[in-house]
């Protein structure tokens, strides 16, 4: 078991240390932090727009990470000879892919979790309704305080030689932003203490969770495409993302395309809808798990058939 854990851990670390990962996370966070101002031109639907855009941004950043992170790294290892060395240990090729995906999935969840918290804070603050619209103090303190704390921890760790700055900032951000959300959830705009976590939309949290599941599906598809296409895997993953958003119809063969529509509930924000039932979330998780299994199994089958290295 230990070798597989080591492969997973290495895959996770490698992904978090990628410059592309840092760029994607930074761009996502900036976009989400600015989203209240950007969404303020939606007539009566400002808040709905903000949540819709936020959820789609998390899905988009997950897709980019799957293409330029998981898929690219897997293709590079298969091409460069790093993977054949591992296979010579001997380690089963299917198990190698599974471990690699587990590491990538952990990185995806970590990278998606921080923006999801920022989105929750941005939605709680909401778009300014007019020029003198009061700010939400607890949200600003929790959000910016959490971000600054994460940067400080990462800088301190980097100075002490304990890992790359970007990866450390993401890990620290997961903790400090959680604390920031808890702080904002304790108080309302006027620094009074109503019901805990009041003001946070559960449907938005569910939408962010579904977006994360969608990015895991794309990560698995990216790893499969890396096995099949190698250098073309990045473009293939991006195409799979576009096809997954556009796929429609109930034909059975469509199951080979990752149906990202099932992870997309942005429309509900415009309908004042109640939170999704647990059944929907479980079925979406089941679909993601089944699709990931199929991708990894197909990748393993391809790997078993061909010479590697």
């Amino acid at each position: 078991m230990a070798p597989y854990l080591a492969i997973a851990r290495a895959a996770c670390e490698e992904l978090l240390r990628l410059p592309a990962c840092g760029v994607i996370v930074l761009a996502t966070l900036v976009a989400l932090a600015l989203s209240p101002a950007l969404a303020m031109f939606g007539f009566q639907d400002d808040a709905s727009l903000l949540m819709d855009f936020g959820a789609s941004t998390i899905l988009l950043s997950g897709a980019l990470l799957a293409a330029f992170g998981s898929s690219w790294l897997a293709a590079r290892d298969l091409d460069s000879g790093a993977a054949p060395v591992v296979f010579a240990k001997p380690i089963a090729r299917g198990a190698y892919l599974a471990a690699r995906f587990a590491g990538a999935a952990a990185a995806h969840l970590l990278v998606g979790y921080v923006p999801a918290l920022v989105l929750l804070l941005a939605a709680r603050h909401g778009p300014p309704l007019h020029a003198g619209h009061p700010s939400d103090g607890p949200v600003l303190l929790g959000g910016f305080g959490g971000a600054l704390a994460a940067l400080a921890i990462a800088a301190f760790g980097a100075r002490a030689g304990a890992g790359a700055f970007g990866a450390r900032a993401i890990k620290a951000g997961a903790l400090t932003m959680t604390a920031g959300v808890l702080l904002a959830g304790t108080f309302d705009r006027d620094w009074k203490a109503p019901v805990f976590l009041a003001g946070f939309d559960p449907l938005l949290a569910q939408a962010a969770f579904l977006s994360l599941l969608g990015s895991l599906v794309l990560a698995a598809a990216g790893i499969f495409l890396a096995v099949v296409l190698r250098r073309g895997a990045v473009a293939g993953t991006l195409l799979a993302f576009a096809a997954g958003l556009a796929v429609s119809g109930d034909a059975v063969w469509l199951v080979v395309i990752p149906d990202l529509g099932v992870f997309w509930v942005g429309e509900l924000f415009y309908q004042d809808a109640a939170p999704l039932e647990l059944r929907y979330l479980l079925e979406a998780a089941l679909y993601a798990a089944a699709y990931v299994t199929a991708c990894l199994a197909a990748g393993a089958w391809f790997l078993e058939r061909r010479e590697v290295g």
Partner: protein
Amino acid sequence: VTARRVLACGLLAAGLTVAAWSRTELRAARRALGIGAATSASGPAVDTALGPAKTAALVGSLGVLRAAAIDFLWLRAIGLERRGDFFEAVALARTIAALQPRIDAVWTFQARSLAYDIPPGMPERDRWPWVAAGIDLLRKEGLDFNPRSPSLHFELAFIFYHKIGGDHDPAAPFYRTELAREFEAERGAERWRDALRTARLDAERLERLEARLGCPLDLRVAGAHALYWCEQGLALPARERDRFVFSALKHLRAASLLALFHRGRPVRPAPGGHYAFLPDPRFETQARQALAERVGSKQSAAQESPEEELRALDAAAIRYLFLGGDAAAARQRFAEAMRRGTFPGARSFEEFLLADLEPTALDDPHAARLALARAQAGAVALDAAGEPGFAAGLRALADVIRARAADLWPGALDPQEALPEPDSLPFGVEALDTARRARARAAPGTAPPEAPR
């Protein structure tokens, strides 16, 4: 190796099977939630979550950049509209709709531009396609994406009521005729059903509405469409933020019923003419109920109060009874109203009748002759159009004018003297009078508008 390949194949098959099953379940759940699928009566399926497949990939892949793009495009579209560049504004609005089809304001902006801003720049006979495009945009694409938007239902009903049914646009008779021609086929016939489908009207809902009204709706009349879409909008779940729209829908519903009462009976024109619309007393009770619901509600200073509107409705009902050919019933109802004190200013039935129908008829003998000519020419036109009841009503009106004129100016109206050419006909029925239209065409500058071919 073989065992591992078999295991991989087994897992692949199992994964795809479970994925296919759960995908089917999820898609069914999404339809139940009203997302990712069109829910309008008979529209093309919008089967992906983000709209048609061709735009879904673009929309989904922009993420939060979509907000910035929408902001920019909105500001530009509004700027263009203010400058009067309506075509460009509509083109930009279409792009915004592709980026964010779930905002109803995107669709109402486009529909208003198409129906209201662009047509005045066109010749009258070329305006209808633009108005029709505005309506189609709302009832097809707009409602496909936003089936639960009361704003879209209101906008749609308003265009039918105001733009087509009203007289604010000189080309309104063209619009009414074009709309009426779409539903000229016999009710229930395949062509009529096709027209129903094209107009996105649901036959069952229409039947339910008619059962509630107690009479069939003639879809050749703009008010019938306005009423249908008002009722559809009012049937939507009421949300707090939509309370103003619901209030507006209730007002528009009452106004549509009044419009049907005043002009709800279409009269087919001679070839090349426009449809005329006569009063339809069947809608009196419904219009009265809708107005009564509004009694006590807040009105702006410029608006007529519901109490005043109810009094006007009573007066119109009596006049329409008379014009419909039932003078005895009209007189009886007038007497009852006088006993209740409904019309404090009225002295006699004849005066009451002429005060609205021919207010200048008793100014002088020439005005009386002109009013007489209008009534008689209108009666001839209605007779020719197969409306003997209203033709008889207009003849009775002519008798009233003649009798009152004889009282005021004995001998002034010589029965042998030829009447002057009337300047207009009652109820806008001049379109039915092809002889008069031909004479008007011969005199340049007075020709009534032609129907587009």
